[in-house]
């Protein structure tokens, strides 16, 4: 496999964590424009732990996920009382606050003759834990996809469980769900924390793939794209957001059919889909149809 294909596939894998994070909130009925903040929290936490404090990556990734979940609870606790557009705006504002905090974050140590650590707007160089251990891009891509498959299996299992049905019920009609005895606010807070942890996992993998991060990496464009991927791919199954990422990064960007007009095509695709298939290509009806056909054949 050439460097370019590995790069495209790695980016698809990394973006998928963020798209799945947005998807999880969407099926619970909340549209977050702020998942990039938790991606950033994961990237900074994981990066600092490995590059500045020499913590092994697996432990740093776990710590990053915990910090992403805590940050999501911190944001979710006040904002999940809001509904619809107000929640979306609040998450966007929180994400921008996080980005500005990253700009103010300065914590550097002299390591091997180099200053390593976050340096505000100058970014954070030297996140070389993976690189210094000789992990080749193809091997790192395999690691990303192994983690992604594990996450997907968990998602697909949850979706078939009672918890999955409960999540979709609070997304469809929170009042009705509450009247059936479901603690909607607590469940949504749990969903927000899980989505935050998932985005943070993507962030820590991104930081170690890139070896460099900066606050601008985590601005609104990243959040909008992750949300768009979930909406394009569809909300009927966890495979939907992945389809969204593959369509944009794989087909539109990877193929170079549209060149620099790709963003226009992508924006148009989002607009058309929101009109004709508001819950995406793999929406609940499509998934039901596919499942019924598959079961009929077997």
């Amino acid at each position: 496999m050439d460097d370019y294909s590995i790069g495209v596939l790695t980016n698809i894998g990394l973006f998928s964590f963020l798209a799945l994070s947005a998807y999880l909130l969407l099926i619970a009925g909340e549209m977050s424009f702020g998942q990039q903040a938790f991606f950033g929290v994961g990237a900074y936490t994981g990066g600092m732990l490995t590059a500045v404090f020499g913590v092994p990556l697996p432990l740093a990734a776990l710590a990053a996920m915990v910090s992403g979940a805590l940050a999501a609870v911190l944001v979710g606790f006040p904002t999940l009382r809001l509904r619809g557009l107000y929640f979306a705006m609040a998450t966007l504002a929180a994400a921008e606050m996080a980005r500005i905090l990253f700009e103010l974050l300065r914590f550097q140590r002299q390591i091997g003759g180099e200053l390593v650590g976050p340096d505000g707007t100058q970014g954070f160089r030297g996140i070389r834990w993976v690189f210094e251990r000789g992990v080749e891009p193809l091997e790192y891509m395999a690691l990303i996809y192994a983690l992604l498959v594990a996450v997907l299996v968990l998602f697909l299992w949850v979706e078939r469980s009672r918890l999955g049905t409960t999540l979709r019920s609070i997304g469809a009609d929170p009042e009705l769900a509450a009247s059936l005895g479901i603690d909607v606010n607590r469940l949504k807070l749990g969903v927000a924390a899980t989505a935050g942890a998932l985005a943070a996992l993507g962030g820590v993998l991104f930081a170690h793939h890139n070896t460099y991060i900066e606050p601008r990496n985590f601005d609104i464009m990243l959040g909008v794209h992750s949300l768009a991927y979930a909406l394009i791919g569809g909300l009927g199954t966890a495979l939907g957001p992945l389809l969204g990422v593959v369509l944009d990064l794989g087909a539109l960007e990877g193929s170079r059919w549209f060149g620099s007009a790709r963003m226009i095509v992508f924006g148009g695709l989002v607009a058309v889909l929101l009109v004709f298939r508001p819950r995406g290509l793999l929406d609940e009806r499509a998934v039901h149809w596919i499942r019924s056909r598959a079961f009929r054949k077997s």
Partner: protein
Amino acid sequence: MKHLATAMLALAASTAAAQGTRAELDCTFTGKDHVYDCVVHLARDGAPLAGVQLSIGADMPSMPMAHNIKPVKAQPGKKPGEYEARLDLEMAGEWAVKLRLSGPVRDQLVLHYEFDEKGARPSVRRSGTPPRK
């Protein structure tokens, strides 16, 4: 599966490569949309760094992972420590140019440059200074 196992083994190891490679970029606009002829100047411990294999990629800091520029292999330039490559970017603006060195020296560097029709120059951040290389 083999690649995953290798990655897991490598992550368990604890060797570390030394840092200290410095790079600068000198690019001229070719006249064709977003295509630049670039010379990379590599140095290590103050001396030109020759004889390495250099692969150059690029990403946009404001939209990470969304622009996959095909990495190009740089050719040795006219002087020691110089490497030449043609970069075909998708648009003007700030790009994080990723240099991946292999061969006698294994390293990875990220340089931030602003590309437009005048060529390329180091990006200036809000604090007013170009980022460290």
